[in-house]
C-alpha cells in the first residue's frame, strides 16, 4: 500500500480502483505474499479457474479460497510446505473496466470490474513463458476504510499450464 492510497477517502471511484489494482499487482510481482490476503475481505471468494470449468458451470478451481483465512493458508502452504524451482512471475493486467455497480446481500455497495491478465513466468536458464492468459472478474467494496476484493474470479483460457501454477494471480 502506498501512503497516498491510505490517505485518500474511501470511495469506489475509478481512480481508487486503479490504485487498488496497481498496489495489488505490485505486491504480487514483488512476492510480498504475506501482504496479499489483506487485499481481500474476511469473507471473500477467490478463484483461479479454467475457462472450460467456468463455462460448463463446474465449481472446480485450480486455486480456491473461501475466506481471507484460506488465502493466508495458501501463503503458509507456499512459503513453508511447498517445493518448487526458483522463478520470477510478472503480471501484465489491462486497465480495469467497470461493468456493473450494485449492492451485496449485506446492502454494501460494490463495483464489478473486469480486465485481462497475462501472467508471465521466467525460470532459470529458460525463456519466459505465459502461465496464464486470463480475464479477471472482480467485485470491489469499501471495507474497514479501504477498497478490498470481496470476490475475484480469474478465468484462464490457457489449456495447459506449463507444469505448475506456484504463485497466485
Amino acid at each position, binding site marked *: 500500500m502506498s501512503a497516498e492510497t491510505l490517505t485518500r477517502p474511501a470511495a469506489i471511484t475509478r481512480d481508487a480502483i486503479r490504485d487498488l489494482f496497481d498496489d495489488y499487482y505490485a505486491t504480487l510481482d514483488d512476492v510480498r505474499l504475506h501482504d496479499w490476503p489483506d487485499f481481500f475481505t474476511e469473507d471473500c471468494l477467490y478463484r483461479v479457474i479454467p475457462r472450460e470449468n467456468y463455462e460448463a458451470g463446474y465449481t472446480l*478451481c485450480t486455486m480456491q479460497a473461501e475466506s481471507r483465512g*484460506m488465502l493466508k493458508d*495458501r501463503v503458509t502452504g507456499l512459503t513453508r510446505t511447498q517445493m518448487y524451482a526458483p522463478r520470477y512471475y510478472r503480471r501484465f493486467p489491462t486497465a480495469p473496466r467497470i461493468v456493473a455497480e450494485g449492492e451485496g446481500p449485506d446492502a454494501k455497495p460494490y463495483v464489478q470490474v473486469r480486465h485481462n491478465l497475462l501472467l508471465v513466468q521466467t525460470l532459470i536458464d529458460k525463456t519466459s513463458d505465459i502461465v496464464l492468459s486470463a480475464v479477471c472478474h472482480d467485485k470491489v467494496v469499501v471495507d474497514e476504510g479501504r477498497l478490498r476484493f470481496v470476490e475475484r474470479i480469474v478465468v484462464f483460457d490457457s489449456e495447459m499450464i506449463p*507444469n*505448475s*501454477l506456484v504463485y497466485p494471480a
Partner: protein
Amino acid sequence: MNISVRPPEGRVWPADADAAVPYWVYTDPETYAEELRKIWYGPHWLYVGLECELPNVGDWKTTTLGEKPVVMVRSAEGEISVVENRCAHKGVKFCQARFGHSQELICPYHQWSYALNGDLQGVPFRRGVKRQGGMPADFDLSQNGLNRLRVEEVNGVVWATFSDETPAFREYLGEKFWKHYTRVYDGRKLEVLGYNRQHIPANWKQMQENIKDPYHAGLLHVFFATFGLFRADQKSAVDIDDEGRHGILISRKGEQEKTEAMADIRNFQGDLVLEDPRVMDVVQEFPGEETVGMITIFPSVILQQQVNSLTTRQIVPKGVGGFDFHWTHWCYADDTPEMRLRRTRQANLFGPAGFVSADDGEVLEMTQQGACGSPDEHFILQMGGREIAPTDHQVTETAVRGMYRYWRKVMGL
C-alpha cells in the same frame, strides 16, 4: 523434446537388474518410439474418460491415447465407441473441440461423413460430377471407416485398446486390483466436478513411478506430512499385481504430531496451523480404515482417492521428455451439496497449484533435467531391498521395481 547428448549404444542395463534403471529410459527417442508401439498401442487398456461425460447419444469428447488423437462418442443408447480422430481420406484430425454433440462425424476438408460408430456413410462426388471423376467403382464404403478401438465401460470409466490381444479389462487388472478398483468405482453413477490440465516436462514413466513411490510422499509433501494425511509412520501398504504393472498405495489418515519417525523429515512443520481448516474437513466414506488409495493402472492413468478427493489423472505422452496430465475431478451423482463442496475444497491439495501435487510436477521436471545429460548412468531403486512383492509399509520402491520388470519384458530389453 530432449535429445540425449550421448545416445545409449546397445542400451545397456545395469547388472543389478531389478534394483537399478538406466537414465536412457527417460531420454532415448528410439526407446520412446518402441514404447508407443509395444505399450501404448500394444496389449494394454488405456483410460479414455468417464461415461458420464457423454450423457446423450451424439455427445463426444476428444482425447489422445499414446500420441493418437481419438474421439470417444456415445454412438447409440447404452453404447460408447472410441474411434481414431483421423479421417480415412487425408488423415485430418476432424474433431477439434474438447467436447461436442453431432448426429454424425464430418471431416471439414472434403466432408467425408461417418456414423457415430465410425462407419463411413458418405463421400461427396463419389460418383463424380456429370459423369466425370469420382471414386473408382470398387471403392467400398464399408472398408474405409474410421479406425475403431476395442472398448469396455467398467463402472463408469471408459477404457480402450488398440490391440486385439488385450485380455478383458477385469483379467487385465487381475482379481486383486479388481477389488481395489471396485472399492471406489463400485457401480454408482459418477458426475464431473471439473478439469485441470498441465504439461509436465518429464518422461511419462516418471508420473507412474511417482505414484508407485510412497517413500517420497511423506518427505517431499511437507503439507501432507504436517497434517498427517500421508506420513511414514501410518499403517499403510503397497500392493502390486502379479505382472508388476499396476500398483496401489494404501494409507490412512493420522494426526499432526511429532513422532520418532518424523525426526528424519527435516522440514516437518509441527507448529503449522491453518487459519481456515475447512480444506482438512475429511470424512470417512469408504469401507475399512484406509483413507488413501492411489492406484496406478499401467500405462495411462492414476486413479486417485485421497481422503474425499476423487480424480482420474490421465497421462498423455508428448515425446520422450514430456507429457500432458489431464485431471478429471468427479463426485458421485447422488452426493449431497456438502460433499461436493468438500471434494471441491480438497482439490486445493491437488492439480497444478495443489499444496501437494505441484511439488510432484516440479520434482519430475528436475529429475528429467538431471537425467538428460547422463543417459548412460543409472538410478538406484533399492529402497525396501530388491524384492518385487506387496508390502505392509511405505518405505519401499517395490512397485517401481515391478513396473520396470514388466516394462523390460514388454520391451524385450
